[in-house]
């Protein structure tokens, strides 16, 4: 979002601010309920579900943070998301490069393959995918077993975002490099990759957050101490359904990394996309 001046005339009247406040309350309410609920005891939650912590209880959070299972899930989530991101971004930018900078017959057709990939929801392939990964590849209950299919499903959107960005890179740079005797592959590594960093961050964050939040595929493929955080949260909340405060603390901590990543990189993400779209 470039910081253009607002075009809509009329600053907000009081009504606009009231509306905005309502929206903020409705949006953040559930999240805050989770975060604050983690600071209350189950008795507090039972006697006044909508109240504030009184007194503040820290044991729920400390229990989660000292729980080795929680850290195990966090580790799994992190590693799976990292593998997914690296594989998707690397394979994606490699595929997008010739689609953007080479001219050859069947180029648009090849691009359509990636576009069509967008139309295949993971749910359609989930059962055979489960069989493929666990039986044929023997990768059931491993990081790679989840990360590779996730990377594959992240590829279409990655290529589709990266291609216009790569197309917009100035041709002069490429020509100068060619004159200096660089090969096309050298141009890819030393010119195209560094120049498209903002777009790579964008697709990387998308792939990372999608993997971090994924549920269906890990649900089928991972058990026990290979589970990721979403599975951990869902299972914890069924197993400890009586311990509402504990569930809320667990849930709150699990959502923090994705939120921080988004907030920290918000400008880069937006900048990358703006660059990709405007050239």
């Amino acid at each position: 979002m470039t910081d253009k001046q607002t075009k809509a005339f009329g600053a907000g009247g009081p009504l606009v601010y009231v509306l905005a406040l309502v929206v903020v309350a409705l949006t953040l309410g559930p999240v805050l309920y989770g975060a604050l609920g983690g600071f209350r005891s189950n008795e507090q939650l039972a006697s006044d579900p909508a109240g504030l912590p009184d007194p503040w209880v820290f044991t729920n959070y400390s229990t989660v943070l000292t729980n080795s299972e929680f850290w195990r899930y966090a580790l799994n989530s992190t590693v799976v998301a990292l593998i997914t991101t690296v594989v998707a971004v690397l394979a994606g930018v490699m595929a997008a490069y010739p689609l953007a900078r080479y001219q050859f017959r069947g180029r648009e057709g090849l691009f359509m393959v990636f576009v069509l990939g967008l139309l295949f929801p993971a749910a359609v392939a989930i059962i055979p995918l489960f069989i493929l990964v666990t039986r044929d590849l023997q990768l059931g209950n491993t990081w790679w077993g989840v990360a590779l299919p996730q990377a594959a499903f992240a590829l279409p959107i990655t290529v589709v975002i990266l291609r216009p960005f790569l197309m917009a890179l100035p041709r002069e740079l490429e020509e100068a490099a060619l004159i200096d005797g660089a090969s096309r592959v050298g141009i890819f590594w030393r010119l195209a990759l560094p120049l498209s960093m903002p777009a790579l961050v964008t697709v990387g964050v998308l792939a990372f957050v999608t993997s971090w939040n994924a549920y269906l595929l890990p649900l089928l493929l991972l058990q026990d101490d290979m589970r990721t955080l979403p599975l951990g949260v869902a299972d914890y909340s069924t197993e400890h359904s009586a311990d509402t405060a504990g569930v809320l603390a667990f849930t709150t901590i699990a959502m923090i990394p994705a939120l921080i990543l988004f907030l920290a990189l918000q400008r880069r993400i937006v900048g990358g996309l703006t660059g990709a779209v405007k050239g």
Partner: protein
Amino acid sequence: MTHEGATGPVAPTLTEVVTRRDERRVAPRPVGTGWRQRLEIVMFVSPALALMAVFILWPVLSAVRMSFYRWKGFGPMDQWVGLNNYRLVLQDEVFTDAVMHNFTIVVLSILIQLPLGLGLALLLNRRIRGRGLLRTIVFVPYVVAEVIAGVIWFQLLQPQYGVVDTVLTNIGLTPPEQGFLGTPDLALPTVFVVLTWKYLGLAVLLFLAGLQGVPDELYEAAQLDGASWWQTQRRVAIPLIGPTIRTWAFLSIIGSLQQFDMIWVLTHGGPANRTTTMATYLVEQGTERGNYGIAGAASVLLFVIAFVTAVAYQLIVLRRDTKVDR
């Protein structure tokens, strides 16, 4: 049009995909020819194609194959049953209801999330204090995992002891006895409310980005002509972000047809199968009951339904963009 995706992670891409316009404008020129170039292309593209072939194409084809067999998940797949699995699935009321639920979510999304999202985007496009912060806040639920949002809402919606029921009781209303998620007639609408909470931020962000692309001069001209704020929005801004709105609707439709996570966490498809979706149906048939043939048939049907809907939408609605807006 090119600006509207500027802020949404998914926006420009799908716009590009769906409408595919800009490509030929910046066609790179040929450099290097012959086998060397071909080799380079193959080298660059093959990792991506290999991954997609193994983990997308092959499983999808397997689902098709599986759908013609009666197979319990072990032993050889040799009991060919033709179209019998499809017959079973289509005659299964749980599945046809699931399709209905998916389309209910599709229709409600358009009818409710579109006006809400548009209203919020217009509101946030005004020159108010803290606008940047507001935009970030509105997007927070979208970043939170569906499972995590589901677990929190599950707690909020607990019958009697949950916050929602408590608040309703305090203001003198009687919440349903079995809770919102436990009452058959209320379960799906309740799930939809939670989905709206989760996904409204995306709509707002996309629409806002679209509004950024509306030139100042148009507002000024409208203002000079004596148009009110609302008239300006209605006659100038909203028509101009039409393409963004249609792209959002496309995303929303596809997402609604694939819905799984939130429902699995909130209701598991219950009570009495009143919130099943095609995805929950096929996962349950496949992993929980071991009816792999049936799951395969349901997968194929899900794909066909999603594909036909996407193509129909493209033909009916999105085609206008290519014709009119450019």
